[in-house]
Structures are given as structure tokens and as C-alpha cells.
């Protein structure tokens, strides 16, 4: 038992994947984000997210792996609108991972907080534990009307009723990039080869994605920016996403 606990502690140690090749990280520059929601649309198309309809949306049963949260700042007439894109933070010390009774969610060697859909039994504990509220539950099996089912991404499972889901950092694209790297006899994926759907679609390039184990990667340089902060850092979840705060004039 004690060895198991030791192993688990080792596993839970932040940055334990330094010895592996990748630690996928994202930076989000809030100064550049215009709140256009292109990332949401791109994610919807890439990851087979269902359209739940107006009624279910009102019941808070929508599924959006990335969403734009809107905040108002100041008092009228001196009021400002602020946006913050919120997606799974892929925390090193993810609270959701400790909660899952069947290990359907776990941390893999690339620093990704992952979710295995067909292992999930739908206790929804992870969603309760997540302080960012970025886990979404399939309350129903959603269907796509013809011919919309033709646009489903074959590299992503279509989830069914009773399964939790969340942002995967477009793991299918990471997988393809790794596959290409292996074909070229490269040890690592080059910087910029993996581009998640949200990053690809961002018109202002507010989102940057890459491997922070590589000091030359664009994302590693962005992370050193003094504007950087992590959302709800005080909860010690050590997220993998660094937000760059807005510059006030």
C-alpha cells in the first residue's frame, strides 16, 4: 500500500514529465483577445461538439470546450468590457484527476489532462471538483441531422449519453504531428507543427500553443512575459495555461 502511495506521490509531483519530451502549454494574450468567439466555433467543428438547442442551453447543459467569459469593469458611463477565454487548464495538480473513481481522467506523460470517454461511468465528480468549470457532461445522446453528420471529425469519438468531456488540446492533431515526426526520424515535433483548432482560428493570434519543455519554442518565450498570470493560482492547481493580462491605458 505504501509503495502505491509513494508511486502516486511521484506521479502527482508537478513537472514530473520534464523527463519526457513534451509539456504542452498555451498562452492567452488577453490584450489581443477581441472576444470574437472564432475559437469556440473552430472547437465545435473540430471536436464533434453537439448543438444542444435553446431549451437545453437554458438548462445549462451546453457543451463548449472553450468559452469566452465576459466581464464588465467599472461603473456607467465609464464601463469597459473584458473577455477571458476559458478552457481546460490541464493542471499539473488537477483536482479532477484525484476524484475519478475509475481513472477515466488522468495526467499523461505530455502534461495533458486527459479523459477516456469509454472508461467514464458518469459520476460527474470531476466536474464538481474543477474550479474552472470546464468539464461538460453529456446529459443526452445528441444526433446530427443529415447531412451534418458528414462533417464529423473521424479522428474524434462522438460521445454518448453519460460521459464527461472537455478540452483535449486537440490531441488528435498532436498525434498526427508526432506521427509525421516519426516518419522524418525526428525525436521531437517542431515548434508550430501542432496547432489546436482554437489557436489556428484566432484572428489576432492571442492564443499560442507549444511545448514548454523546449526553451526555444514561441510559447516558452511568451510565458516569460511579466504580464503572465495563471487563473486561480491560489488554489495550487498549477495550470498549464498562462494568461497575459490586459494592458491598461
Amino acid at each position, binding site marked *: 500500500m505504501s509503495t502505491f502511495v509513494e508511486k502516486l506521490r511521484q506521479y502527482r509531483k508537478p513537472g514530473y514529465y520534464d523527463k519526457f519530451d513534451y509539456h504542452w502549454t498555451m498562452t492567452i494574450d488577453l490584450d489581443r483577445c477581441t472576444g470574437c468567439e472564432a475559437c469556440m466555433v473552430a472547437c465545435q467543428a473540430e471536436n464533434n461538439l453537439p448543438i444542444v438547442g435553446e431549451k437545453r442551453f437554458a438548462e445549462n447543459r451546453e457543451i463548449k470546450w472553450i468559452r469566452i467569459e465576459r466581464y464588465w469593469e467599472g461603473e456607467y458611463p465609464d464601463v469597459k468590457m473584458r473577455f477571458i477565454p476559458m478552457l481546460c487548464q490541464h493542471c499539473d495538480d488537477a483536482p479532477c484527476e484525484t476524484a475519478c473513481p475509475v481513472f477515466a481522467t*488522468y495526467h*499523461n*506523460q505530455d502534461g*495533458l489532462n*486527459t479523459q*477516456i*470517454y*469509454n*472508461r467514464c461511468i458518469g459520476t460527474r465528480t470531476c466536474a464538481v471538483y474543477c474550479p474552472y468549470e470546464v468539464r461538460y457532461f453529456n446529459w443526452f445522446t445528441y444526433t446530427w441531422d443529415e447531412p451534418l453528420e458528414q462533417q464529423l471529425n473521424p*479522428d*474524434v*469519438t*462522438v460521445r454518448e449519453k453519460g460521459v464527461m468531456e472537455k478540452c483535449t488540446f486537440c*490531441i*488528435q492533431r498532436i*498525434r498526427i504531428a508526432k*506521427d509525421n515526426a*516519426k*516518419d522524418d526520424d525526428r525525436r521531437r515535433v517542431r515548434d508550430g507543427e501542432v496547432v489546436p483548432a482554437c489557436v489556428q482560428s484566432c484572428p489576432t493570434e492571442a492564443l499560442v500553443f507549444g511545448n514548454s519543455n523546449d526553451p526555444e519554442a514561441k510559447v516558452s518565450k511568451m510565458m516569460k512575459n511579466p504580464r503572465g498570470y495563471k487563473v486561480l493560482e491560489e488554489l495550487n492547481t498549477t495550470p498549464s495555461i498562462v494568461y497575459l493580462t490586459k494592458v491598461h491605458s
Partner: protein
Amino acid sequence: MSISVLDALRPGKKPALLGLVLVFGLFVGAWVHGKYFSDRSPIQPIEFSHMIHATDNEIPCQHCHIYADRTPVAGVPSVSKCMGCHNSVPSVREHPEILKLVAYWEKREPIPWIKVHDLPDFVHFTHKRHIRAGLACQECHGPVETMNRITRVATMRMPWCVDCHTERNVEHGRDCWTCHK
């Protein structure tokens, strides 16, 4: 005292006889199901023999399954691929199975082959990586070149995959997201 079935066959012991027939029927049924109705070895629209093609005529696997070393799927050859050879093989042109093929060709329809090695939708499998790692086709598909009708040999289930990944020490081979999607 010896045990004999003759005792059960006597008219006075009908229930025993019935039981015997039932057990026998179960075995026959299981055999018939496995032989003709299971998804392991379905009857295909054309009685295609890998034995004739791969052993007798020594055609390599990737002559027809051309995408095996390039893409995730190995690819079933198109009807035109079949006809490309069979047009110039006059010796078997009148064979009833070849006539079926010609009929599909003339109708301009694909042959509705029944998939034997079918993985669930939540599994990511790529032929390319396995072929390039140096695996022979037979390690998963069995001795296809000796089969007259294709039969699935392996279970194609998760323990079977994981066993092989563990045995060969595949890099991150037991990470869930290597195979799940």
C-alpha cells in the same frame, strides 16, 4: 457396469433422449454459427481466395492493399484494380466467381465486402506505424495467405493490443491516448 447411450435411446426414456439431442444440437449449432454466421468469418459477396492470390500466384500483400505502409488504413483494392489483372488472365475468365466480379465492373458498383477486422470508433489504429515498426501483416491477421475465406484470428480486443505493446516495450505504448481517441 458400463455407461452407454443405448439406455437413453429406449422409448421409455424420452426426456433423457431429448436432453441428449439438445446437447448435441447445441454443439452442432455452435459449429454452424462459427463456420457460417459469425463475424469472424463471414461469407463474402465474392468467394475471393487469398490462398490462390498470395500463395499460388505469390502476389505480395501490399500490391493490392496499397496504403498499408502509408496511411492509417490498409485499403481494399478497387474493382478496377481487380479488373486490371483479370482482364489479362483469360484462363479463369469463365469462372463463376470472376463473372460476378465482371458483373460489378459492368454495373460500375463497388463490391460490398464485409469487414472482418473492424475496430470500434473510439480506437485510433494506424497501419502505417505498425508496418514501419517492422511488423509482418501475419502477426495480427494470421496466416492470411493460406485462407480461402478470410477469418479473423486475433481477438482485436484491448488486452491483446496492450499485451503486445508491453512485450515489445513500445514508447508510451500503454498510455490510454496512444490508442483511444
